[in-house]
């Protein structure tokens, strides 16, 4: 029943594109649009940007238990605005929703939450940092030291996170172009978290530890009209270097790609479209769909040519907005762990 309103929420990028890209910093409905050469101001920019249509705080983690069994964890808070700006109480145009998931080799548990802005049910403050919806929280004195919690009908987790490196800015200093036409978002990450805590699963409580990656992104028009979906990779190699790469699949069969190479010390290099390549090697039937679950990923400039395997091919987020999100491992030129998100396979 509530699928329709939410499906409507998800349709807004198309609607925005129909309005055209004005290039004047706002679109026709009054939303701000990202501009090149951004200058971020922290901690304020860890908080929400209500003048932009959509924004997220997107955390993924690769974990292991004391026996060495691998786990994946996701916690995402989305903000979606019906109109730019904030409003009083129920009149706020901000709608919040969140996804949480835990993936093991043989199960994938996911759940979601919804909230209206303005009344205190959900929101983000920058200083101290605090992102919440219902009883789910991601909070701490600053973004380098956080606690994380989420609960669903059949799982829960409580984690602590500590950042060991700097923020990484994608694209041109955080201005991440998403299409040839120039659609773009503001996009930065904190990929250097150490994470530990407890997963509560149907079988019982499991102490786990590992690494986590936080993505921050906000925009008003992330997809071009001819783009069907994306495949997004965050890879942490065993040698300490990291790679963020995504491709936007276009209806003519070509892809728009973007990637960032992150050295172990956090210095980063952004690559334009075409530098990063990802080809599906094998598909799995997941929730009645064919989804690629083995990939060949390459960034020749850095000598990366790896085969990506999913920990659990059935990591389907069967929520109001369905997509695939789960932990991966890689072999080939590099080894390591990471996360894969695939949308548009509906």
């Amino acid at each position, binding site marked *: 029943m509530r699928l*329709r309103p939410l499906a409507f929420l998800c349709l807004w990028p198309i609607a925005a594109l129909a309005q055209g890209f004005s290039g004047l910093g706002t679109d026709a409905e009054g939303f701000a649009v990202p501009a090149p050469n951004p200058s971020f101001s922290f901690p304020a920019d860890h908080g929400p940007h209500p003048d932009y249509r959509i924004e997220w705080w997107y955390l993924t983690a690769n974990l292991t238990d004391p026996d060495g069994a691998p786990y994946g964890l996701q916690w995402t808070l989305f903000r979606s605005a*019906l109109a730019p700006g904030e409003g009083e109480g129920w*009149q706020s145009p901000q709608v919040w929703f969140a996804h949480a998931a835990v993936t093991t080799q043989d199960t994938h548990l996911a759940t979601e939450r*919804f909230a*209206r802005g303005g009344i205190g049910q959900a929101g983000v403050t920058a200083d101290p940092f605090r992102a919440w919806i219902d009883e789910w929280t991601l909070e701490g004195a600053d973004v380098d030291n956080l606690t994380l919690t989420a609960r*669903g009908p059949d799982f829960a987790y409580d984690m602590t996170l500590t950042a060991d490196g700097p923020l990484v800015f994608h694209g041109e200093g955080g201005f991440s172009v998403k299409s040839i036409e120039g659609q773009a978002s503001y996009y930065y990450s904190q990929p250097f978290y150490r994470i530990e805590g407890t997963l*509560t699963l149907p079988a019982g409580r499991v102490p786990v530890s590992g690494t986590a990656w936080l993505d921050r992104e906000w925009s008003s028009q992330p997809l071009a009209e001819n783009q069907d979906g994306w495949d997004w990779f965050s890879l942490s190699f065993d040698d300490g270097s990291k790679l963020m790469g995504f491709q936007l699949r276009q209806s003519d069969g070509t892809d728009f790609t973007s990637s960032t190479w992150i050295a172990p010390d956090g210095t980063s290099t952004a690559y334009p479209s075409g530098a990063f390549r990802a080809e599906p090697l094998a598909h799995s039937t997941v929730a009645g769909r064919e989804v690629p679950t083995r990939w060949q990923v390459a960034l020749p400039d850095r000598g990366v040519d790896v085969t990506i395997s999913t920990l659990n091919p059935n990591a389907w987020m069967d929520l109001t907005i369905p997509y695939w999100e789960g932990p991966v491992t890689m072999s080939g030129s590099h080894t390591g762990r990471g996360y894969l998100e695939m949308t548009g396979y509906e």
Partner: protein
Amino acid sequence: MTRACLSALMSHWRRNPVQIFAYLAGLALATALWSGVQAINAEARASYDAAETTLGEAQFDRLVSRQGASIDQDTYLALRRAGWQVSPVIEGRLGAVRVVGIDPITSPTGFGALDAGGPLPLDFTGPAQLFANAQTARDLPDDVTVTLTPDIASGVALGDVGIVQRLLGRDDLSYLTVAPMQPMGRPDLATVAPTLRLQPAQQGASVAQLTDSFHLNLTAFGLLSFAVGLFIVHSTIGLAFEQRRPMIRTLRSLGVPLNTLVTLITAEMLGLAAIGALIGIVLGYLIAAVLLPDVAATLRGLYGAEISGTLQLRAEWWLSGLAIAVLGTAAALAGRLWQIARMPLLASARPRAWVMASGARLRVQALGATALLIAALALSLFGQGLMAGFALLGCLLIGAALLLPVLFNWALAHLQTLAKGPVWGWFWADTRQQLPTLSLALMALLLAVSANIGVSTMVSSFRTTFVAFLDQRLAPELFVQVDDAAQSARLEAFLTQNKAEILPLLSTKAQIAGQPTDLYGVRVGQTYRDNWQFLGATPAPWDAVQAGTAVIVNEQLARRADLWVGDSVQISPDLDLPIAAVVGDYGNPHGQVVLSEDLFRTLHPDLAPLQFGIRTDDTDQLRAQITAALGIPDSAMINQAAIKAMSLAVFDRTFTVTAALNVLTLLVAGFAILMTLLTLADLRLPQLAPVWALGLTRRTLGRCELLRAVALAALVFLCAIPLGLALAWVLLTIINTQAFGWKLPMYLFPADYLKLGLYALMAALLAALWPATRLMRTRPSTLLKVFANEA
């Protein structure tokens, strides 16, 4: 050939305009009543569905204030922040409209009816915008922007919780719906929101169920009138076939193949049936449009069910009307076509319509009737369930209808032997001779009259019982509703100080003996002891209740859970109490358990009484004092007299509808008689001409025709009384018990039956008036043609 045959067949109607009128009008009337009633039912059902989907909340548990007050928005947020998956709802009134505000983002139902495809109400940032149907929209203030949404229940406007809060000038919530999926590790309600309690979803007590009894009445009427209409159609078809036998014989001997003839006749009759049915649907729409406001008022008053006062042309009723009319015609046609197919080519062309009913045929009919009545008896003794109840009704009615000609034949033969003088002897003999042709119309009249007796007995019995029940239950002169525990305590203190007898009522919902039940705590006192009458009780039920050692349950709970006086019910996990008495309860379909006030308070220490009954000699003065001293608004109080007046007004509305349907079914039955007599008129001439020639004037013959109709109607009425009472008995003791859980005592209303009998005689007299007048004015030469040489 087809065209020639068809025009030959149709020429019969041109020669007999009365017959085609009877055929079309019979079908039209039958379809009109049926589809009119169906239209009303469909409209009501659509309204209930709209109410269910608009609010859609009955299926979810709720959190409500323990004190019956509203809920702070902070409490809602505290629950959400603790992990409780709840969604806010605010309800209030803007004038006559019930305004419901929900949060579409968290609601487990979303905007229900709106989901069907209307514009989505996501723009909660904009100006005050509500969703309502056109009728409700007119009752809303002008400054509210209304998006017209036909699927929303009448009397309800829907909007975003924030917008409704603004419109109502409030910042609180009415209740919270609890989503079915809840996270693990959620804290207890008591630790997060101690002022709230969980109210389980109401199972099986929807508005539709409540009002079923009322619609059952309407449907019964619709079906009976349709049956009556089909009798008309059946006899018209029969006559048309008898009269067209010579033509059919001629056509066949001229070489028209049997198949062609059968096809043509089928096409002709069904085509005409469709025309009649369409006329009927138009008439049915008019009937429904006229009756709907009264029906709507009845349902609103009786059950608080809002139904739309405007009628829509819904396929479900007009298509069903058309289909059932054509099918009914086809059924009547099939037997006749079978006869044609088997008819020897040169069979006698002499119409057989008035051949004396042979003893054999009557014997078969008597056997069938006996079998059906025995089946009815067996069903009434051993039948289980609602379907058995309806089967019983069917067997009873059809059996009685079949028996009617047999009884009449016997009675008329008897009257003939008793008759003094040749004219009376002839009168009864002639009446008896006409029985086979008139019997269908007489059966129709029997069904109409007995249905009227049955239904009006049921409705009147219900009214009598309900009024007595109101007198029992509404003994206190004044009723006051308070908002919260504090107000409740202040009111009680104030009344105690004023030495008024107070009857506080504590209530909560519970699941008892597997049934959703209202649990009541009452202060046992003289008022209860004096006024409550029980269907079954131990010697001193109130003493046991007062001592907390027994409970009283209502009939609904007793019947559904198969409990009676002396059985034990579990009131709380560690308390079982015996039933001291079972009380008749005609105000609602829910189960009820009555405890003493003390026991109730022990079980539910945090509930305060929110309703008070007060015994007082001066209601007006006390009302004024309560308002002045406690600030309780006058609108929260109601006089006993006002409630009674309201309830009776509701019943009078019910009677309006019932009476209108009574008159309509009688009219249809009267019409059946009229049409039969008119179509028979020409065939009657050879029977009457010799009597006339022998020295009875045409005037005398005409009077005899009138007298005959009245005599037959009187006989029908005599048969209809026992049948109608049997019908009422089945409706009251079997159908009602199965459908609604209460058994109603049956009362007799002889004056009403007498009036009805008078109406039936009048209907018959009016029906015979035209044919009799026609007979009186028949020219002698027309009568003399009977004797004339055929050559």
